[in-house]
């Protein structure tokens, strides 16, 4: 349940969520081992963001539980939960008038009372998070003037200022150039080695394979495969879930899996618009994945 350092793993157990009459998350079971980087993969509309929101308690699941170690996350008070879980969204919206240091200080919200100002400890945490996200030079800049990549780092630093045990990130590499993407994921891996459990929704399979300890593949609201990247990200799964032909190579220097796409699969690219309806009859893309790789049970 917890790793050798006593860091609790995240367990989702039969989590189900409907919005309106659409089933978005369908009996999801998944685990992210403590102090590791988990990557949440899947095509657009697979339910990645929703699953993150459910774990973060932003949305309430219709059924199932999410636990950190033995703690039922839904049973925690909202404020207490915000001290355990942080969510960094991908944001490009303008937020006028706030400086970077002030945005990061928002992460202290769950620790502050109504009237008392931030104390020395809070300031120290904010400062450390600015350093961790390499933002010290930008601390006095207005958030609105930052590039997409810089904003992503600010969002990360704000989440870190919550001093969470579990860090959730929604596409943290969007809007980033290659260097910034590698920096971001390298940072997440360092944080994980330092004792933080990370779950990030990602689009880039090679990037996920290169940095994540554990991947969870979601299609149409269901987990279709989970486990070590090397074992999960197979050409067959990529074809079934994303509808593209790909070869999985070995990275010449890191030895990590490297996904080389060739073309869109000719037959039956997964229909993303009504795959939920199809899903009820079992004819969903993910359902065709023969062997469910799941080594967490």
């Amino acid at each position, binding site marked *: 349940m917890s790793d050798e350092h006593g860091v609790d793993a995240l367990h989702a157990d039969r989590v189900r969520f409907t919005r309106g009459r659409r089933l978005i998350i369908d009996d999801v079971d998944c685990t992210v081992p403590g102090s590791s980087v988990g990557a949440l993969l899947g095509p657009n509309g697979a339910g990645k963001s929703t699953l993150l929101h459910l774990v973060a308690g932003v949305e309430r699941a219709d059924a199932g539980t999410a636990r950190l170690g033995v703690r039922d996350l839904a049973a925690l008070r909202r404020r207490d939960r*915000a001290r355990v879980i942080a969510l960094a969204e991908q944001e490009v919206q303008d937020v006028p008038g*706030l400086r970077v240091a002030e945005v990061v200080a928002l992460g202290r919200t769950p620790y502050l009372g109504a*009237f008392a100002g931030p104390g020395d400890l809070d300031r120290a945490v904010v400062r450390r998070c600015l*350093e961790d996200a390499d933002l010290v030079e930008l601390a006095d800049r207005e958030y609105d003037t930052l590039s997409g990549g810089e904003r992503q780092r600010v969002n990360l630093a704000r989440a870190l200022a919550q001093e969470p045990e579990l860090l959730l990130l929604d596409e943290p590499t969007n809007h980033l150039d290659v260097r910034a993407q*590698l920096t971001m994921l390298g*940072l997440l891996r*360092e944080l994980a080695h*330092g004792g933080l459990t990370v779950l990030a929704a990602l689009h880039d399979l090679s990037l996920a394979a290169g940095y994540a300890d554990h991947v969870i593949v979601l299609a149409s609201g269901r987990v279709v495969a989970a486990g070590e990247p090397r074992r999960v990200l197979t050409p067959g799964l990529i074809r079934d879930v994303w509808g593209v032909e790909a070869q999985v190579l070995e990275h010449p220097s890191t030895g990590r899996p490297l996904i080389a796409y060739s073309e869109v699969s000719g037959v039956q690219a997964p229909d993303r618009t009504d795959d939920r309806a199809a899903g009820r009859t079992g004819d969903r893309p993910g359902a065709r994945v023969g062997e469910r790789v799941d080594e967490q049970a």
Partner: protein
Amino acid sequence: MSTTRAEAGTAGPAGTSGTASPATDAAAPSPARSRTGLRTGAWAVGLGILLVASVVVAVTIGPAGLSPADVWASVLAHLGIGEPTLTPLRDGIVWELRMPRVLAAAAVGAGLALCGAVMQALTRNPLADPYLLGLSSGASVGAVVVIVLGVGLLLPFAAFAGALVALAATLAIANAAGALTPTRTVLAGLAVSSVFGAITSLVIFWSATGDSYREILNWLLGSLAGADWTSVAIAGGAIVLIGAPLLASARTLDAFAFGDTAASALGVHVGRSRALLLVGTALLTGALVAVSGAIGFVGLILPHAVRLLVGSRHRALLPLSALAGAIFLVWADTIARTLFDPRELPVGIVTALVGGPVFAVLMLRNRGLR
């Protein structure tokens, strides 16, 4: 975490090297923070002094040739500290006529600016203001109806009910038309305030015995001409009772800056907080409108002006907006009652002369508004 960071510089696959260097003395308070704190404090003291001076000077302005010293003497005498030095007539002008009016203006201005700042944060709409979203017109209807029915005691409560109905109507109309965007909200507010303004006029016209046009103008554009110590008590009491919890919500309002999801992930009870705070602004608006009628744009102008000075953090923004709103309305009302002396201009005309252009500038500055 700092240690992790230090190792990372060498071990990380894409180490962001060079960041760990000035890092380690993290306990030292950030100079940026204390600077903003100091600046906020300086502005608070400055605006506080300016407010007191404005009140004293505004009381002297007008026929009767009073001096600030006369005002002080009268105030001290009434507080039981000094001996009365003014003639009863001049003392009456200070204490019975002008002082309550100026103080009511200060309280109403402070409250409206506070409401505007809170609404702008909650609806993430830079154009939010109790007047533009229809709350003030709704409150006017409630107030006028109660006055016609002759149950004056209920005045602030009826105004509150009117404000709440108007707010609910505005948000419901904007929401039914799609997402709650700033433009839709302002348009819905326009529709709601037109209807409630018309109802106010109808009720007054139907019931009036005297100068109904003047009466209508005072409600629709706002006026502090009738302010007495009861008005000060209502507006001031509302500021204390409702303003304090609003000020205490500064942190929550900050958390709304990045949207509902982010606020929720920061531990804020999004739905409940927004509902409570919006009801709070309706309550406060109701009490203010009961005293002054629907004065526009104060809630729009002052929060934006203060943001330019101290940024968007609500711990600084809310109290400074209130102070600035008080000063602004004291002077707007002084202009309104002296410009065409002895005739009075509804104070809303003065605030609209400033507020209209500010509204236009805000639209131009926020090109991304939808």
